[in-house]
């Protein structure tokens, strides 16, 4: 059996098993854990093949799905998808693990939705057919909508609908682009469409390319989110139950970033280059705006939410530098952000569970009764602000380097965001964990054994990602290099076919050549 198919369908199998468990059954938790851990173990099997062929499709599955429309069920893994799939399969069991205490009712249904969500995510990260990609993209949306709406805070209904409608509005435009592109190219297969564009057998006029690009971009920009399409995020993050917030921030936001690098850059390089300045500026606005808003939030979860917007801006910036370093940094930052922000949200969930509130003013001096919790938070926070030797440093450094190659001003402005993040995060830490203990926080429990089990793998990963880059980077570099090459090739084709646009070539190719040096 194909290892990728196994990884994909284990969570779905778990979903069905949980669906048919009796409502009051206590066995939901172990069953969900077993299925998600099995998916994790199975996903480890993807590493070997992906390392040997990082720039190509490994562990591929390709069967006809809808004959009449030439839709293939085509999945595969390359150096980028590999780590995102592993990130998903690692974080879902942790999500299930923490749900046991952080979710109050209807546990089995929640676990079932988590597994369905995992099914959607793995599909998104491995789809090599545009139709299949869209299907999984939406499949991941529904369980998250139900988790936010079914288990969230007081305004959960509003938050869930806003989240769904926002995302849906973006994805229908992507669907239009997909259908248009497939009608033009005669296939939904990503590799075939790409090959057709690269060889010049299918040509898109620059207007067509621009609109198709914008269709995809809208869907991805909402999901990441890129400023000014982020307005669904704060309410969703703060109303969602802790395990759902954790997963939205840690993995769901990566769906958008992944889409940008996989589809927007490679399929529509011409339009991407044309829009790159705008998008980079929006990304930088997001970095600084997120940081500034994080400053003034009185609510712990919201601080992390806005800081998340800020750090996600780096990913987008890195992608639109069209530099090897920028793309590498963006992918690395996806992983690092997933782990560190995920850890912060879990710890925030534990704090909320203990105090029953998320207002920073309700905390203070937590480090005294709960030193373990404080230490874990400290590590995650330092990782998130980009302290060297911890995960995010590598990603943000590479992004800044790529940005400096592409346009030094970008790098300078983005670096401001790094500095700001250190300030607000340390301030947050100070107000929450240091100072005098209050009557409410004095009896805080420290992290228990079960809670450590959830946090420990994330701490290990933060250190590992930050210190030994070589374990992760080679397949990423190979894959992003391949993508950028394809993008460049496609760009040249477009330039050759559309003579008036030679100025684009003049602008871009020197930069690309420089990166190769």
């Amino acid at each position, binding site marked *: 059996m194909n290892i990728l198919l196994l990884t994909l369908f284990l969570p779905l199998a778990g979903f069905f098993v949980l669906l048919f468990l009796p409502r009051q059954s206590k066995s939901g938790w172990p069953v969900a854990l077993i299925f998600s851990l099995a998916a994790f173990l199975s996903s480890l099997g993807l590493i070997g093949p992906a390392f040997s062929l990082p720039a190509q499709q490994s562990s591929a599955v390709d069967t006809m799905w809808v*004959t009449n*429309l030439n839709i293939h069920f085509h999945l595969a893994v390359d150096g980028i998808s590999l780590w995102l799939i592993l990130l998903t399969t690692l974080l879902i069991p942790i999500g299930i693990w923490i749900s046991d205490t952080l979710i109050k009712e209807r546990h089995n*249904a929640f676990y079932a939705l988590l597994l369905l969500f995992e099914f959607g995510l793995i599909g998104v990260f491995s789809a090599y057919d545009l139709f299949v990609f869209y299907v999984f993209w*939406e499949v991941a949306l529904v369980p998250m909508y139900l988790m936010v709406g079914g288990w969230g805070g007081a305004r959960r*209904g509003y938050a*869930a609908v806003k989240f769904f*409608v926002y995302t849906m509005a973006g994805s229908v*435009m992507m*669907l239009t682009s997909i259908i248009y592109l497939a009608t033009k190219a005669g296939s939904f297969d990503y590799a075939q469409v790409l090959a057709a564009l690269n060889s010049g057998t299918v040509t898109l006029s620059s207007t067509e390319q621009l609109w198709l690009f914008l269709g995809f971009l809208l869907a991805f920009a909402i999901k990441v989110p890129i400023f000014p399409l982020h307005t669904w995020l704060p309410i969703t993050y703060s109303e969602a139950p802790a395990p759902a917030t954790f997963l939205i921030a840690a993995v769901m936001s990566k769906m958008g970033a992944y889409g940008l690098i996989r589809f927007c850059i490679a399929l529509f390089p011409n339009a991407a280059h044309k829009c790159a300045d705008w998008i980079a500026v929006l990304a930088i606005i997001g970095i600084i705006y997120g940081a500034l808003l994080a400053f003034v939030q009185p609510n712990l979860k919201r601080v992390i939410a806005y800081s998340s917007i800020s750090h996600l801006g780096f990913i987008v910036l890195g992608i639109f530098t069209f530099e090897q370093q920028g793309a590498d940094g963006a992918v690395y930052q996806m992983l690092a952000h997933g782990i560190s922000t995920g850890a912060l949200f879990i710890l925030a969930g534990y704090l909320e569970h203990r105090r029953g509130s998320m207002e920073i003013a309700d905390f203070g001096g937590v480090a005294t009764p709960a030193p373990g919790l404080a230490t874990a938070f400290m590590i995650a926070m330092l990782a998130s602000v980009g302290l060297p030797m911890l995960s995010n440093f590598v990603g943000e450094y590479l992004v800044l380097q790529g940005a400096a190659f592409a346009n030094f001003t970008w790098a300078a402005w983005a670096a401001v965001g790094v500095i700001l993040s250190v300030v607000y995060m340390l301030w947050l830490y100070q107000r929450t964990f240091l100072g005098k203990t209050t009557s409410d926080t004095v009896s805080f429990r420290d992290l228990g054994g079960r809670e450590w089990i959830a946090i420990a793998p994330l701490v290990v990963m933060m250190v590992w990602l930050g210190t030994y880059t070589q374990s992760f980077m080679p397949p990423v570099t190979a894959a992003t290099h391949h993508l950028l090459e394809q993008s460049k090739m496609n760009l040249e084709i477009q330039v050759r076919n559309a003579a008036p646009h030679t100025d684009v070539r003049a602008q871009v190719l020197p930069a690309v050549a420089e990166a190769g040096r």
Partner: protein
Amino acid sequence: MIGNYVPHGVEYIRILPEILLCIFGILIMVLEAVTAEGQKRMLGVLALVGIVVAFAANLYAYTVPGQAFQNVITIDAFATFFRGLVLVVGLLCVFASLGYLRRQHAESGEYYSLILFSLIGQCILSTANELIMVFIGLEISSIATYVLAGYFRDDRRNNEAALKYFLLGSFATAFLLYGIAWCYGLTGSTNLNEIHRVISDPGLRPPVVLTGIAAALILIGLLFKVSAAPFQIWAPDVYQGAASPVTAFLSAGPKAAAFAVLLRIFMTGFGSFSFRWAPLLWSIALLTMIIGNFAALTQSNVKRLMAYSSIAHAGYILVAITADSQLGIAAVMFYLAAYALMNIGAFVVIGHVAAKNERYVRIEDLAGLAKRQPATAALFALFVFSLIGVPLTGGFFAKFYVFRAALEAHLVWLTVLGLATSAVAAFYYLKIVVAMYMKEPGESMADLAPLSSGTRVAVWAAALGTLILGIFPSVLLPFLSYSASMLGRQ
């Protein structure tokens, strides 16, 4: 020649489904008189048997395709599909009615025979190859549904629904009939193949303006039946007023049959004329999607909400018709199949929650359904997600197929605007899910009875069909493409 015309045996086989439905319908009415009050349920079961037998006959008739009775009807893949579809719709609605009528203490044979008679009309519409047959089929179907809409005669809303439906329906039929008269005057025939021959022959062709008027009059009559804008006014009141299983039937069966006729007339009869009404259909499709989706936003009655949403769905189907291609025809067929299943499923659950005399039909009345009956709520959520167009459901694939056809016909703006309205649709559909999953149970849940067995069959079958169409659309697609390619080629 007409004087000594003797039909072949095979021609009777081609209309066997209608004959069988007729026999069962009359049988039920006769047995009604001799069935004891407590045994009326058996008449419903008899109706089920009749529909299943008719379905089998429909498949059998397809083994001897061709025209019958001097070419007034055609049995081809297209007709077989639509006959099958309306029979499935009838089957699901009878299943749902079994429990509903028992709850209302209104079990009787005439209800079931009316459904069978209406199905006869829809079957005739699906197979008609001649405008007089279209008219006859439409009348048989409509008159039965007028009565069904007002079946609970003590209920004020039922009466209102029936009266509105009847008056506006008759008005629309008059347009259709007038159009048929024009057609006959212009071409000397009511046979679609003959009309096609005359219209596309440069020597015989009547003036374009006059042909246009004839086509427009027929179009108005049919657009009314499919509740397309600006002829959609009746739908919300009728859907709201009629009993839920009847609404489910009205929203799926007659609509499917009317679309079948629309395609048949305009692809076969006026085939060479199609480019002239493309801009008109374009605007009607867009208007229908916009009116349906935006009007639904403000509804608090769940049946009205579904009524407006079904107007919007008619708009999506019109997009595929506007595409005017084989892919478009296949998309219409697929959409109608998926739409029938999900819409019936949704209305059946609504009827179930509404309790006796349909007291609980506001959106808030669905609150807490997920806590009281998780399986029912999950199935309703499935129908809602399918109506929104979330992948792995029939509704998504149907939409995908429609807009694929539209883009292939270069209808870029219609696609963009149509899909944008479908994002708006997500907003009101989700109100249902929010109520079921995110609100605490209220008074309506205290009165909630367990699902009756008939209702359960209807809901589960609809859900299964929705999923199969969404995950394995290939079960239907080759047949649909084939039907589409055969349409208009005789």
